[in-house]
């Protein structure tokens, strides 16, 4: 097999940070190469150099035997490189055809050749099984459909090497499997593919060869057939990471209970007649594919949404809809689903974010003034206690990586020793090391007697952490089952909405 792409000794620095350190990478014709590494390992930077978004400080990019000028996406496109970005670069207000055709013609031309463009787009869509409607507006498409448009865009520009940055981050499992089928068929038609991932299972399932990046360096390269998920995990993290195990222990009194609660969002019922009870020292897992009422459940459990019917009680006292402040005062610690939108205020420093929920307490304010030094030292404590790497109390919180930000949010929620913890997708988008840390803290809170409601899409996480599980489907909750009595078949059926009442 011939080499189609050769990255030679690439080094890229951002200020004091070396994002890529002497990385050499080769891609053979017709193969799928997985670029594996934790968040911040330098995978995306490397691909951005290849595509010309960044210019490398040292090293060269060679495509089909020809060296690319640094920092010019146009040259990369002309050489046959196509990139599907993690955050799609599509314009929502324009049509699929508009998005695909942009840049494919000389700018100064009396009339855009849209009819030819449409025919070519449909032919590509047919050839690779990427169904699309050229006249649909992009804003009306699902995430999976948008990704197809991104891929078609690259193919339309004649890409023979396709780079996909975390292509499955936004897809459901079925969509992801379908995507890998399509990628496989593309390689049979002569394309070569690099995809970026930090998920071991899909790397094992979909790649021919795997290059592992850690801390900006390429630490290893393995043929798929010569390696195992365990070895990859170790190479990726640099040491063995094992997720903590849940120890059996006895469960206490009921703390948080919902009785036949219905919640409306935007005037429509989003949670329908749900009941659950979380006991002291218990983790209750609510598992299901996203979009099945988790948003409404999160809103209910953080006090933002009030029950339309039914009761939500904490230690027998009705608290449904009293508002977030009352929930915090009653001892509910919350880890919101979207850490950037609801968890933190990105522009504010770490210490302000850390005390946001407790500004009314005498510990952090006197006579309406914030006790800044107390708040700062509290932030410093949390940073140490929860192993938040690279953080100082004065730093803007948006500068933290996802995993470290999540550890800080977790610390904020757990520092007050809450009776109840609402953990909504607590490890979404985190790498292995951070997942293990978050799990350990949640299990420690369980040992300490907190009642935790864990809302998650990740079945493995739900089974690892939970004492009992309920499935959420179409705004309804199944009856709880003890984890010991469940198996993957039964849980799969539950998540599909099949359960006895």
């Amino acid at each position, binding site marked *: 097999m011939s080499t189609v792409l050769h990255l030679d000794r690439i080094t890229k620095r951002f200020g004091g940070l070396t994002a890529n350190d002497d990385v050499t990478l080769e891609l053979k014709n017709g193969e799928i190469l997985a670029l594996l590494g934790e968040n911040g390992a330098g995978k995306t930077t490397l691909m951005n150099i290849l595509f010309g*978004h960044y210019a490398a400080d040292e090293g060269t990019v060679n495509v089909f035997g020809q060296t690319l000028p640094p920092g010019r*996406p146009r040259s990369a496109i002309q050489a046959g490189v196509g990139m599907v970005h993690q955050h799609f670069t599509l*314009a929502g207000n*324009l049509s699929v055809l508009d998005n695909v055709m*942009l840049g494919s*013609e000389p700018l100064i*031309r009396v009339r*855009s050749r849209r009819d030819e463009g449409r025919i070519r787009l449909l032919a590509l869509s047919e050839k690779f099984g990427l169904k699309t409607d050229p006249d649909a507006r992009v804003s009306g498409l699902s995430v999976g459909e948008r990704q197809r448009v991104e891929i078609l*865009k690259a193919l339309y520009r004649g890409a023979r090497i396709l780079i996909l940055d975390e292509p499955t981050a936004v897809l459901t499992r079925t969509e992801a499997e379908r995507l890998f089928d399509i990628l496989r068929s593309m390689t049979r038609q002569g394309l070569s593919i690099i995809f970026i991932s930090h998920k071991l299972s899909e790397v094992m399932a979909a790649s021919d060869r795997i290059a592992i990046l850690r801390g900006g360096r390429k630490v290893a390269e393995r043929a798929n057939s010569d390696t195992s998920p365990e070895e990859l995990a170790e190479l990726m993290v640099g040491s063995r990471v094992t997720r903590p195990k849940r120890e059996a222990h006895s469960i206490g009194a009921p703390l948080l209970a919902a009785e036949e609660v219905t919640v409306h969002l935007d005037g429509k019922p989003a949670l329908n007649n749900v009941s659950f009870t979380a006991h002291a020292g218990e983790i209750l897992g609510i598992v299901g594919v996203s979009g099945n009422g988790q948003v409404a459940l999160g809103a209910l459990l953080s006090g933002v949404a009030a029950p339309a019917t039914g009761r939500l009680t904490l230690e027998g006292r009705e608290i449904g809809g009293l508002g977030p402040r009352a929930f915090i005062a009653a001892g509910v610690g919350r880890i919101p689903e979207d850490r950037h939108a609801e968890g933190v205020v990105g522009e504010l420093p770490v210490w302000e974010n850390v005390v946001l929920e407790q500004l009314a307490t005498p510990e952090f304010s006197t006579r309406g003034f914030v006790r800044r030094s107390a708040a700062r030292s509290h932030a410093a404590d949390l940073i140490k206690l929860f192993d938040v790497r690279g953080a100082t109390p004065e730093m803007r919180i948006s500068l933290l990586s996802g995993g470290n930000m999540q550890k800080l949010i977790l610390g904020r929620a757990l520092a007050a020793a809450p009776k109840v913890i609402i953990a909504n997708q607590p490890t979404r988008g985190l790498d292995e090391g951070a997942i293990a840390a978050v799990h350990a803290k949640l299990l420690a809170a369980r040992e300490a007697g907190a009642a935790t409601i864990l809302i998650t899409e990740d079945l493995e996480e739900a089974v690892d952490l939970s004492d009992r599980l309920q499935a959420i489907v179409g705004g309804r909750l199944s009856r709880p089952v003890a984890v010991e009595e469940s198996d993957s078949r039964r849980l799969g059926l539950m998540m599909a909405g099949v359960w006895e009442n």
Partner: protein
Amino acid sequence: MIESLDLLFSASLWAAVLRIATPLIFGVLGVLLCERAGVLNLGIEGIMTMGAMIGWLTVFLGADLWTGILVAAVAGALIGLLHALLTVPLGLSQHVSGLGITLFASALAYYLYRLIVTVGESPPTIDPFRPLDFPILSEVAFLGPVFFSQTAPTYLALALVAVMAYVLTRTPLGLAIRMTGENPHTVESQGLDPTLIRIGCVMAGSALMALGGAFLTTAAFNSFFPGMVQGRGWICIALVVFASWRPGKALLGALLFAFFDAYQLRLQAVVEGVPYQLFLMAPYLLSIVALILVARRAQVPAALMIPYRRGER
């Protein structure tokens, strides 16, 4: 009452509508082009003032009318370049820069004017564009005076509406411009330069705005005097929202406003016992109402007013 309705059937009213609409059409096309590429240009009021002044001055100094128009457009483009440099590569607030440009350009225009014409002197006049005279067509009742007896720049403005609509929707350049206003990162990842596209659009848009100003001194009137732009620039900013960023609708909006304006002028003469200020207010009031009715469905370019910096999301 009957008299005020009778006005609606007078050819002179409708001829005035087209005449009053012309500077608005130039201005609104200019704003539309800038905003389609993602840049708000509040410098329009000042750019129109400068265009009016430079257009008049060029002719006053001996050039012909079309040269005056051309020089005004070049001046507009240069002021646009200043706004573009501040807001596109430097990424400054488009509001602040635009208002600054308006203050700067108006003041500069008045200053240059005062270098030539001293206070108290009556404004020097030039020989402006004359209404065109088409054989036969201009003689047709009603349609003749309305459509075939306008000055040349009015026909230019109408033609530019069609050109703008065609370029934006039918050419690769137009697609790149629209995409720059929607998502400049896309443009960059397709190997084009959104910064250059934005600068070009702001310059061309500002040239159009200056044409609107130049129309005032070379066709509507025959001299320049301070305050003559009278908020027309601001009206154009609102008209673009009213038009949902579409050239055809922008023409409609300009005509609608011009109609209100022309009608209220004539009503003042007919209706008695109402303070004339109320009539002056009417077009603006009605524009606000129209804006409220239409603008809720408007399709704002997604990247409007968002500075583009390479490698940042």
